[in-house]
């Protein structure tokens, strides 16, 4: 396998690496995957996960492009005044255009954390996006209001019973201000009897995802860390999205960036399997259109 370094976009300012599908796969797909940068981490991905994923996907006949959005990793900083949210949509579309020139017609967008939010935004209204793989995404609707109760529930349900969490509390390893604000705000909300926001995270995400169901895009949601612990908040909203392929993986035993090597590998294997089924629609078990798998 020979990977290729690329410059993307009209200004040739975004750096990317193209990983072609393996020559010996039965059928090379017209589908390619695009890995979008997570936060300020560059296109290699957290713990090199984008590289490992790209190389694993080649065995399923899927080529992959991982690239840096402007100002991240090896890419240049833009000097125009385009807002950041528009920049990411434009640059993801530039990446799609570059792959179209190589003959690809359908695309999977993969993102972790902010990369997932950018994937959601870029995929909206784009029928070329056959699949979305969103790892630890929020609702990304611009609503900055944060409901403190999921975090408070997490502290009370898990941290309260954990010896290490108490050790951390007494040895200065927690952010006291954030902890106090979270617990206090959650208490105030509870006393006020304000239940309106309890499922707001899930509902907002549902409203963002619903259009993709209609556009026929398959979605794989991956949740870990606190996202996994508050899955119950998403669940009701997700259950209403059964009209298309919608799968959820919940990793209860790992952190936000999948630091555990064994779970990194597990995630990559599952994404490869899911993507391979997407390439070959006939291979997909139609009874599994809506699934929730808990790992660990």
């Amino acid at each position: 396998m020979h990977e290729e370094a690329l410059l993307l976009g009209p200004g040739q300012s975004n750096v990317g690496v193209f990983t072609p599908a393996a020559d010996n796969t039965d059928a090379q797909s017209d589908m390619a995957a695009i890995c979008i940068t997570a936060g300020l981490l560059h296109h290699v991905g957290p713990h090199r996960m984008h590289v490992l994923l790209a190389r694993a996907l080649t065995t399923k006949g899927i080529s992959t492009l991982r690239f840096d959005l402007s100002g991240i990793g090896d890419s240049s900083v833009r000097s125009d005044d385009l807002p950041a949210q528009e920049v990411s949509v434009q640059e993801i579309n530039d990446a799609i255009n570059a792959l179209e020139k190589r003959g690809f017609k359908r695309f999977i967008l993969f993102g972790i954390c902010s990369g997932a939010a950018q994937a959601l935004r870029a995929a909206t209204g784009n029928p070329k996006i056959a699949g979305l793989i969103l790892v630890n995404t929020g609702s990304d609707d611009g609503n900055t209001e944060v409901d403190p109760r999921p975090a408070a529930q997490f502290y009370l349900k898990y941290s309260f019973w954990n010896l290490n969490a108490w050790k951390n509390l007494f040895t200065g390893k927690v952010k006291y201000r954030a902890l106090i604000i979270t617990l206090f705000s959650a208490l105030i909300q509870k006393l006020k009897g304000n239940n309106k926001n309890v499922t707001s995270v899930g509902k907002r995400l549902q409203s963002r995802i619903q259009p993709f169901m209609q556009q026929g895009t398959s979605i794989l949601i991956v949740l870990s860390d606190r996202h996994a612990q508050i899955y119950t908040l998403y669940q009701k909203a997700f259950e209403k999205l059964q009209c298309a392929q919608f799968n959820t993986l919940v990793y209860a035993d790992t952190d936000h960036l999948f630091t555990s090597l064994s779970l990194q590998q597990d995630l990559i294997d599952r994404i490869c399997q899911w993507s391979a089924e997407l390439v070959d629609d006939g291979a997909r078990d139609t009874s599994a259109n809506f699934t929730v798998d808990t790992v660990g």
Partner: protein
Amino acid sequence: MTMSPSLINETIVPVYFGPDSSLYGCYNLAADYRQAPAVLICQPTGHEYERCHRAMRQLAVQAAKNGFSAMRFDYYASGDSAGNCEELSLSGMRLDIQQAIRHCCDKTGVDQLTAVGVRLGATLAAQLASTCPEIDSLVLYAPVFDGEKLLAEWQGDQHAFYARHSHKLQQPGPGEVLGFSVTEKFQKELRQKLTPGAPGPALKRVLTLIDEAESDSVLINGWVKMLKHQGIEVTVEIVENIAIWRREPMEAIVPVKTIRRIVKWIKEG
């Protein structure tokens, strides 16, 4: 390659080079790069690479803005280069630096360059300065001369991470450090002597940036003394908060003052 000025103001060239095009590199080129002096940046490994990447990229940008052509690259089995993490080795990394020096000299037309190394990248660059006539000046950012101490730090950070998240993490496997595999073979290499030998005749200047805790390091001080004895201009500076590799990856710390200092020192040469 000239970029559209409406979008960017720097020239970036990503490449694959080396045997079987297995190594990834990225140039930030000076405006007239065939006339410009060159800087090769030797990055750290594993989680340290991930956490220092943004800083190293900024160093390359600042170097290019100041008239240098800067090259960063990924060792075999790391970053975008070919190979699996388990294949990483110090001996392989040394060969990769030599390949990068060759590519950088060919690309930019220089015979000699400044090598800037970070952590193990600094150690290896200093080791190679003994034999590579192309390295005429060295910048060492927190070099590692004591492999046992490095392994202890990595294990300590891994344990601390696990303790912070143990209520939601699987027990890490052996040889696992903050999301990266550190094999027995690599650990064995680290336990061998890392202190560089006598420098080659090409080396003229060295800037060593260290943490205050390292200021009484016998290994570093002994090496510096040897360099001075050989008539090499050596500057040792203590840098506050030098350990950017110990911050969370998403923080992507850029030590702006230190980067400016490095570029200024290179320019003075």
